[in-house]
């Protein structure tokens, strides 16, 4: 029996069949029982029918990423088995619907041609039929235990037992049944399962009751009928103050806490969840005061979203938008307007795989160089990246401070890996966020000039509607009052004033907000954004084997902290760039700004997130001198 837990569970099914809520129940129960959770959701750009799955890693130690192997898979359709049977590790298990055993690959219309070809090749190589049973036989050969169960019979038995014939047809409870079978199999507490279902359906007591019945039945079925599974999750000491949180909630809660009161957006995956969450919580409690609120406006396109955000900010309101690559591309012209007019705004950019529509629901860190260079002409801006969800909460507060203090647009880089991860982390502490509005004025004296030349290059900022605070803005070059000028001398002064902001930013943002060093060794990784999680887990695994790898996480990407990074990495001999894009965008930026070459790249652009195992394997090859200069990671369905 394995007791120290690092257990990965996979649930799959057609989009719209409750995979996500199943995973939600499973994660909540495990978190409730004290475990750390790292879950990720993968789905097609589709509403109903295509294959989606959720992988939940459950551990009794701190984790920051997923692994490659799956210990237990539960499926209530054939496609999940076809797509994932080879991911189940020896000694692992598959709970599957026995009624589907004879289903042929050709009967599953959502299997796309390139995948089906690879699947057939695999089945042929083991001389197995092109059926669910064939795939399962290969898994069995790999040492995987099979747990067949007829989901339909469970519903029928439940219907008879409760004298409620309606239950027979409730296939949408397959997810709860699948989760409960899984939890029964690992001997997880049934109380916690019942409580979690009750909580999730607290608004619909009838639905809660039926689901709880089904859960009990399935749970008992598993404990009575399934044998020989060597994994037990019986619960550990719970860490108080633990959140179970989904990625986009980090920036959303950060915005609420730091006083962002205006957000305009246009729907786009994977960014819109954040705006929807903000709108769902639009009325805000304020300490010792009347309630506040966030105006969350759905615009007609991203151009309007950005225009509205700038308009909001000009009134002195902390204002933001949230988008992804295609939407951000549309905002580029306005970014320059915000730049030349020194408007503090925050653009939360949840990247996905490009180019163009790319893989619209899949992961990528594709837009770093675009963000750094977005907009025509030279103007100051900040590009800032968070490494994980917990960071993203506090970073959001910092981004708004940077915007206000330096009067520049701030692009806060997030991505799909963040957005659709569900993790446990330490409860956010809003009191760790400070609010610094820079030179935003509370009152204005006579002869106000919005773009007045000052010693530090930042002018006091009035707001639209402020007494005596009249100013002008224009996208043209302007004089100190904000009126158009084409005077060459004034042009140079204004340009110098604005661009001096870049040095000011580097001098004033504390080092530990610019770059985080997890130690520098002979082999040192440079990376950014969500690659942090898999890297942290991978270098920990290597450390346990006595292999030390350094890691420098870059958060401030523009302006680039060249001197500080050079200082940090001076003792590193081999620099390894890890990121989720084709060309190693950070590597290019790094070389450009530090003069140092990247020795190895570990890149992934399948659209799927990195697992720590993949990163571990690639790093080990590098240390052993067996790696290619460019290691490309491929794992994940």
């Amino acid at each position, binding site marked *: 029996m394995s007791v120290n837990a690092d257990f990965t569970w996979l649930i799959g099914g057609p989009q719209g069949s409750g995979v996500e809520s199943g995973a939600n129940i499973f994660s*909540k129960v495990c*978190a409730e029982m004290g475990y750390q959770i790292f879950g990720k959701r993968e789905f097609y750009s589709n509403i109903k029918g295509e294959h989606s799955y959720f992988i939940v890693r459950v551990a009794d130690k701190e984790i920051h990423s997923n692994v490659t192997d799956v210990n237990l898979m539960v499926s209530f359709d054939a496609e999940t088995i076809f797509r994932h049977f080879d991911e189940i590790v020896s000694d692992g298990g598959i709970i599957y619907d026995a009624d589907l055993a004879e289903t042929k690959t050709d009967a599953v219309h959502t299997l796309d041609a390139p995948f089906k070809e690879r699947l057939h090749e695999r089945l042929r190589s083991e001389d197995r039929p092109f059926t669910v049973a064939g795939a399962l036989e290969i898994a069995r050969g790999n040492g995987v235990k099979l747990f067949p169960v007829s989901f339909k019979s469970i519903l029928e038995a439940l219907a008879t037992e409760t004298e409620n014939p309606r239950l027979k047809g409730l296939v949408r409870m397959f997810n709860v049944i699948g989760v409960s079978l899984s939890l029964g199999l690992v001997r997880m507490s049934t109380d916690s399962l019942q409580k979690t279902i009750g909580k999730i359906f607290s608004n619909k007591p009838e639905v809660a009751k039926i689901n709880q019945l089904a859960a009990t039945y399935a749970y008992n079925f598993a404990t009575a009928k399934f044998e020989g599974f060597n994994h037990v999750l019986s619960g550990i000491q*719970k860490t108080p*103050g*633990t*959140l*179970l949180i989904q990625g986009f909630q980090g920036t959303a*809660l950060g915005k609420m*806490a*730091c*006083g962002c*009161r*205006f957000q*305009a957006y246009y729907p786009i995956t994977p960014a819109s969840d954040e705006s929807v969450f903000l709108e769902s919580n*639009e009325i*805000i*409690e*304020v*300490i010792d*005061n*009347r*309630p*506040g*609120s*966030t*105006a969350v406006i759905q615009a*007609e396109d991203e*151009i*309007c979203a950005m*225009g*509205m*955000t*700038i*308009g*909001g900010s000009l*009134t*002195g*309101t902390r204002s933001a938008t949230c988008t992804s690559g295609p939407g951000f591309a549309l905002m580029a012209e306005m970014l320059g*307007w915000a730049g030349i007019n020194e408007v503090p705004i925050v653009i939360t950019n949840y990247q996905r795989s490009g180019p163009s529509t790319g893989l619209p629901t899949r992961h990528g860190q594709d837009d770093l160089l675009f963000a750094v260079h977005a907009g025509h002409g030279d103007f100051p801006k900040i590009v800032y990246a968070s490494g994980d969800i917990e960071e993203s909460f506090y970073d959001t*507060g910092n981004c708004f401070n940077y915007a206000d203090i330096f009067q520049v647009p701030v692009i806060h880089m997030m991505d799909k890996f963040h957005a659709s991860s569900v993790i*446990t982390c330490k*409860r*956010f502490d*809003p009191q760790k*966020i*400070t*609010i610094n*509005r820079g030179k935003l004025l509370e009152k204005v004296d006579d002869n106000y000039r919005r773009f007045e030349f000052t010693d530090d290059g930042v002018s006091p900022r009035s707001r*639209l*509607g*402020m*007494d005596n*605070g*009249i*100013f*002008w*803005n*224009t*996208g043209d070059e302007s004089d100190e009052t904000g*009126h158009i000028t084409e005077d060459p001398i004034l042009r140079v002064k204004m340009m110098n004033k604005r661009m001096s902001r870049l040095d000011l930013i580097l001098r004033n943002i504390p080092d530990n907000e610019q770059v985080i060093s997890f130690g520098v060794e002979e082999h040192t990784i440079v990376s950014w954004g969500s690659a942090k999680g898999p890297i942290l887990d991978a270098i920990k695994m290597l450390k346990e084997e006595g292999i030390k790898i350094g890691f420098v996480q870059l958060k401030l990407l523009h302006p680039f902290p060249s001197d500080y990074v050079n200082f940090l990495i001076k003792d590193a001999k081999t620099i390894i760039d890890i990121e989720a894009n084709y060309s190693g965008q950070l590597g290019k930026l790094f070389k450009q700004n530090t003069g140092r070459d990247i020795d190895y790249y570990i890149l992934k652009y399948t659209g799927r997130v990195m697992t720590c195992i993949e990163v571990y394997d690639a790093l080990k090859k590098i240390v052993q001198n067996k790696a290619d200069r460019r290691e490309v990671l491929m794992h994940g369905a």
Partner: protein
Amino acid sequence: MALKLADYKTDVHNDWCPGCGDFGIVNAIQMALAEMGIRRDKTTMFSGIGCSGKTSHYINTFGVHTLHGRVLTFAQGAKIANPEMTVLAVGGDGDGLGIGAGHFVAAGRRNVDMTYIIFDNGVYGLTKGQASPTLKLGEKTKSLPSANTNASVNPIGLAVASGFTFVARGYSYDVRHLKDLIIKAVNHKGLSFLDVLQPCPTYNDLNTRDWYAGTDLVDEAQKRHSRIYKLEDQKFDPTVNYASEVEVNEKLAQALIKSLEWGEKIPIGVFYKNEWISPYDQRIKDKIPNYLENPPAKQTISKDGQPSTDISKILDSLEV
């Protein structure tokens, strides 16, 4: 101290061509603001790009000269964040009905309480006279290499169809009438639209001041008559007087039919007015009861540098 007309003028040099129709519009806006006595620092003029874009620099209120086609986006954002402000947006017909047409339609659906004025001259002036969205199909103004191959958009019709709740047309050489229209538009509760016919003396040699004055039209009695006439002189009632579908449809249809008049008779005045449609601020207030008393721009977000927002209940719900 009461504000005078001069208080609404800046000393910025005005570089429009001599005889430009834009002068009449900017004068009418300044006269309207002075007559209403609206505080300069409670008013923001937003403008787009083109000759009309410079308007915000000539008016002594807050002035935000935005981007080509995007003026309504900035203006709506600011008005929603600070609903106490009087907001006017201006732009050309190319700006608002060409590159900005999508925002025009969407703004109609939102009905934010502000005023949008289009300087409608049929040409792109600052880029030397290309055809704009309101130039008729087959017309050839003097800078065009060949006749216009696009049909024209009907600004009044588009506004009515998009949901603008006050739709009117003015003429830049009838400044007093235009001033009155602007006052009505600003006082209207909801999104008001003013299409202002504005001859471009440099590039539009067809729709000239003389053409609007009808110097080419001579009736049987050898008397000239102006093309422009006023709807109010014909007892045209543009107002939706009660909230019924029949009444609304009748007034919409009548506005649309009137908007099609062109050529020898061109109506100006109010085409449509409907205050039964909720303005956007009311729609927000329905969700956020204290929105108008405590809008985004007025909220307290910090105390001694610490957040004053309390998110503890949400965090509690996420805690395991």
